[in-house]
């Protein structure tokens, strides 16, 4: 089962390596990881996507929480949540495919952020599966380079 875990931690040198060291040392896997400052500059938020059965996910959250610099651990996938990932794709765009590429980008509500005579750089935001979908569509046309941010996620607010 895929789980998206959100971790609040002290924004200090070495903290990220405590988290990644924990995963490598205990043989847990990380599918994606993204980290940045929160509103409070001394605290960072780290979103990681991992896979495992219930017992493994329980160990992962407990072990994360045991790290002294970790403030809070939430398995966001326990409840309703929104997740987003951004990808930058440089795709081949020559005379015969330029229009086709633009159509695809439009369908995925992407944006062209850089243009050259032979390529477009495209920005697309969405769930990991949407990002994967546009990659799959553009691949036959000729992807030259991609950069993905990894997933970030937020629990949905209570509707009451």
């Amino acid at each position: 089962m895929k789980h998206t875990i959100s971790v609040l931690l002290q924004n200090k040198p070495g903290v990220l390596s405590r988290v990644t060291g924990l995963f490598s040392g205990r043989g847990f896997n990380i599918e994606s990881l993204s980290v940045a400052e929160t509103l409070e500059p001394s605290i960072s938020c780290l979103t990681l996507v991992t896979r495992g059965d219930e017992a493994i996910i329980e160990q992962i959250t407990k072990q994360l929480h045991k790290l002294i610099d970790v403030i809070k651990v939430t398995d966001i996938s326990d409840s309703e949540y929104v997740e987003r990932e951004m990808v930058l794709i440089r795709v081949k765009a020559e005379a015969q495919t330029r229009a086709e590429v633009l159509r695809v980008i439009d369908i995925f509500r992407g944006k062209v952020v850089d243009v050259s005579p032979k390529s477009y750089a495209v920005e697309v935001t969405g769930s990991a599966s949407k990002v994967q979908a546009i990659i799959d569509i553009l691949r036959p046309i000729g992807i030259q380079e991609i950069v993905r941010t990894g997933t970030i996620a937020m629990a949905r607010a209570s509707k009451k």
Partner: protein
Amino acid sequence: MEKISGSQAIIRCLQEEGIKTIFGFPGGAVIDLFDALMDSDITNVLVRHEQGAVHAADGLARVTGEVGVALLTSGPGATNGVTAIATAYMDSIPLVILTGQVPTPLIGNDAFQEVDIVGITRPCTKHNYLVKDAKDLVATLREAFHIARTGRPGPVLVDLPKDVVAKMVDFPEKKPIRMQNYQPTYEPHPGQIEKACKKILKAKNPVLYVGGGVILSNANEELTELARKLNIPVTMTLMGLGGFPGSDPLSMGMLGMHGSYTANMAVAHSDLLIAVGARFDDRVTGRLDAFAPHATIIHIDIDPTSISKNVKVDIPIVADCKHALTAMNAWFNTSSDFNREQVAASHEPWLETIGEWTKKHPMCYLDEGDIIKPQYVIEKLDELTHGDAIITTEVGQNQMWAAQFYKFNKPRQWATSGGLGTMGYGLPAAIGAKMAFPEKTVIDVAGDGSIQMNIQELATANQYKCPVKVAILNNNYLGMVRQWQELFYNKRYAGTVMEVTPDFVMLAQAYGAVGLRATKKSEVEAVIKEALATDNTVIMDFVIAREECVFPMVPAGKATTEMLLV
């Protein structure tokens, strides 16, 4: 506010924590600290290798329950300490390790004796720090002690760049430490306690399975009260020995790979396993699906990650063992459901079954005329020290025989590297223990292999008039590995024959210690008596039955009921 130097501030922090003795080895990066130490009332024990410093601090911590402190220099000084730090980490021993570091402007430049010790020790410390700013120095030191001794204890390393400790700093008054992100749970959930107690009342074949957590939280009295009140048999892990009196009729001794037949059979047939401060280590459980297959499991531990890590737990109780056991005793004392005589009587058939197992396969060995059996040496040590000595061990057969045949009746008289299994632990740990309790007899039970891993600390023992006794069970083999080779590798003794072993009697003399040797069973008692009567460090070289094995033994990966017996 009056300013003092960073190194003076560090020494003041140690004094504030009540530290009297530290173990260290100097180097360029920590000269300032050693200099400041000279003006204090703290004794630095100059070891002969940094691994010895950290093991000695660890030995002191285990027998006193206080935080042990080691002071090492940068680079190789720090890396030499790593094995001993990992040893303490695996066994949850509270230590503060201070390491020197190159001056901050040189960090990352591959400077002389520079190493990223914070990076290296991240997976084997409870927490660690690099102090880059002198104004953080005092707060960091205080936090380090707080983290080391609270919750599930462990080693904390503080890396101290040379320029940082040279700066002048304030020394503010100490306030209670509150950390937003670190608040261990001491008090058990009352609902869980009640659930556990009610389950215990229903059990017909209960077993208490006791680990090092009981020692660490000083919960031995509460545990003993619970076991006797409810007439429940007790088994201990290697780390839990002394948590319950070994000569009590309810004690089944150690369980697991080299545990007693009784303890392993009892766990396998129990309907309720009450784990207290233990972590279901593979050396305890053997094949996991065959471990306590019929039992409901209650697990008390202060570290939530220990619960349901290896074995699914039915009633988890996250708490300090002492608090949880106190709450359980209180529940039974006040509950109208609990009738002491009735419960005690209801466990009698179970205790009878257990007694039959012990009768069938007691902890024993075969006597062979005048050949020295290692188990006999341990029995004699137990007898002649009235079971009251502090015993440290090296690792391997010597460690298992000590665990099996010395009757530990009190906590904190036993220091052994359980989790990491570090050869070379016993001698420096014995020195640490003896520095803490000069009036007590401290014996390192060793093998001829492992004693050589930190033999240099004999000089330390001599320099500080720290007369520890070393009992070498000498079989001229790396005996435990040889035993595996005998049993599972067609007696191919690859790499386990110690073709050259020093003359330990002469070696002892070379270090200014006393060396004694026994080659016959009839000489053992006299050698031990003489060693105990000598006010000097003594090596007792017992030339033992060469191919003696440790039994019972559960082969790796087998169920704990599939024991090889004497």
